């Protein structure tokens, strides 16, 4: 049995979700008999880590700091093994623009997009490029902050007139935004879990929102989205989606576990990659635990495996 520090909370906008993920992880760890320390991540993080000397840290943080590689760098520095991906994979996952570039460079499908920093608009006159972009992407266009989870700040712009306000909203969350072609279709989430034989794609979850689109509320509230797991898909499509998720996982350099979100486009029947989450939600309504369950992996077994993977990894060799 190990002494496990569960890192949770923090100051990101997804703090509450993280606390729920953390509580669930701690509960599972305690049931198995681990010695569990909860650390609400704040100014005293390094102090707590060095004084508590856990054998391993379970990172149950979402959003800024926790999911973007910052906390992982600190863990590398203090030499404590930790769950899930290393700093560079976290950075690539957290920044949708980096992730999409990585997909594109690797020849993986992802919806067309254009990304801009706030500086590009303020100092480089990028606003003049908007009409050209709008022409190429067609409406509706999806406007997203590059680095925000849980669908916060994502807007659909049905027409050109809606684009500026959507961009302003997205810049509330990050200094970089992307305009992406809207893909109408089915929303699929493929969770990936590492194991002795390398990463394995878990059964696919389809999210069917009851409201117009899959927003923050739908994602974390019981009863506002229907989840179907395994998703009812043509076996070949399911296989392709899982293979694509594994490709994405490898391209981004993920470790331990991650969740890859895809769209199955209605018009073309094509699969396309939206994003990957280095530390997907682990709450009672989250998709990865549902997928694991469908694969016969209980939440406790999932947590155990993730801890074992963390301990098996040489801290310095990650990246």
């Amino acid at each position, binding site marked *: 049995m190990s002494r496990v520090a569960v890192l949770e909370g923090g100051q990101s906008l997804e703090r509450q979700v993280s606390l729920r993920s953390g509580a669930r992880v701690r509960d599972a760890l305690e049931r198995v008999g681990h010695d569990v320390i909860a650390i609400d991540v704040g100014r005293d993080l390094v102090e707590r880590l060095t004084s508590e000397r856990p054998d391993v840290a379970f990172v149950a943080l979402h959003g800024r700091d926790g999911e973007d590689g910052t906390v992982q760098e600190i863990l590398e520095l203090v030499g404590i093994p930790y769950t899930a991906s290393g700093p560079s994979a976290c950075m690539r996952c957290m920044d949708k623009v980096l992730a999409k570039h990585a997909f594109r460079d690797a020849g993986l499908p992802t919806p067309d997009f254009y990304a801009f920093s706030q500086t590009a608009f303020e100092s480089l006159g990028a*606003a003049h490029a908007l009409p050209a972009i709008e022409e190429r992407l067609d409406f509706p266009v999806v406007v997203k902050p590059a680095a925000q989870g849980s669908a916060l700040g994502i807007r659909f712009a049905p027409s050109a007139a809606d684009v500026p*306000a959507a961009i302003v*909203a997205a810049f509330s969350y990050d200094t970089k935004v992307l305009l992406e072609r809207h893909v109408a279709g089915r929303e699929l989430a493929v969770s990936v879990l590492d194991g002795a034989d390398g990463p394995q794609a878990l059964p696919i979850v389809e999210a069917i929102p009851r409201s117009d689109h899959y927003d923050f509320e739908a994602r974390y509230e019981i009863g506002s989205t229907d989840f179907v797991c395994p998703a009812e898909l043509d076996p070949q499509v399911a296989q392709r989606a899982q293979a694509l998720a594994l490709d994405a996982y490898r391209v981004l350099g993920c470790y331990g576990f991650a969740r890859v979100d895809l769209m199955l486009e209605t018009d073309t029947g094509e699969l396309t990659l939206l994003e990957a989450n280095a530390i997907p939600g682990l709450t009672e309504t989250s998709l990865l635990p549902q997928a694991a369950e469908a694969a016969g992996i209980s939440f406790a077994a999932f947590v155990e495996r993730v801890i074992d993977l963390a301990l098996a990894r040489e801290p310095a060799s990650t990246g």
Partner: protein
Amino acid sequence: MTIDETPRGPSSGGESPGMGRSRTTARDLERYAGLFARRTQGMKSSAMRDMMAITARPEVISLAGGFPDTSTFPPEDLAALMARVAADASARALQYGPTEGLDELKACIVEVMAAEGMDVGADELLVTTGGQQVIDLVCKTLIDPGDVVVAEGPTYPGAVPTFSAYQADVVQIEMDADGMRVELLEETLDQLEREGRTPKFIYTVPTFHNPAGVTMSLERRRRLVRLAAERELLVLEDNPYGLLRYEGDPLPPLYALDGGEYVIYLGTFSKILSPGLRLGWTAAPRPVLEKFNVGKQGADLCSSTFGQLFVVEYFAQRDWRDLLTHLRELYRHRLATLHDALAEHLPQGTEWTRPAGGMFVWATLPDYIDTSDLLARALREHVAFVPGRAAFLDGRGGSSMRLNFAGVGEDDLHEGVRRIGKVVNEQVRLYSTLTGTDPAPSRQPRDAAPVPTQEPGARVLPLRRRAGGER
């Protein structure tokens, strides 16, 4: 819980005997989900509420709270009064009390209501656990799922979860500087009648509205009361702030105008003494009051006897008006500071209300700014406000925000508004860069704003800035 009225603490779920350590319910929640009542689907936590949870950090200047100032109540007074309660009535203070409340406390309530020109008998009163419980009891007594409640738009954010929990269909009536537009109310009532629907009650905060800050004019008060009588509709008059007037002459409460026929009155000690006491009251027509009483028995049997005796002692030993005089002076200055800061730091195209009392100012930004998103940006500057959507059930209010000035010191008010101004100006500049428009548009009627909003209903209050109070 509301997003802003209640401080968040570590959740203290029920103890499970035998389990030893604190059991999280999270793990098992999906198992319970199938057992939840349908009404819980309306009881949602939200992204916004999650965001509000991080406003509690010490480095954040929060204008989001619904808090009055409690820091200036002398601790030695609190100690002395509590000692008196212990010495004189220890056993009684520790015991259950009558559901309707202690007679001595009702005498205090009669006094407070008289100070606002209301004549009420002790037998027409029910002491409640905060004014909030009155809203709950009114819904519990009157609302079947789908029943219509008419409220102001915006409405008190803390009433929203109550309305939702009882599955009320809330219709919100636009306001202007003179409060709820009663002529629109009348139109809405006619429309509802044509649809064969009768609202169960009209919910209003006529004086120093939360969150809008405006006060209903005397003419509209009269018209509202007349309307209620003609159509035999109940009105819930929520009046926590009536005694917190900083300028101008008081207006009669609806309850005084109507004589308690169709108006249910909600009062509270929260703003004239302390919200920590959790003591409020309602005055209502007797048949309604009797149902409230039964409803309250089911909810909590009685409100804290200890708290009630504390208030009784406070009224006996002190002049309750003294604290009020002090608070008015304090808040008057804070309001002036907030107004100065808004004028200094917010860009053209921003409007805000000029309350003559109460605790809140309602500011409306250019309609391309979404205050829910803006809050995420503002939190990075360590400042918080309540996004306007919290005051609507239909997605409106997207470009407005509620600012509390009562519970925030003057330095923090100024600095907080400076930070809000910084992020608002940033977004205004960005928007004008994106659209190639004038970064400082002249103040023009909002209806003429050139940019369509995303939601058709998103254009909010035509509340205008006004000099010199609301009248």
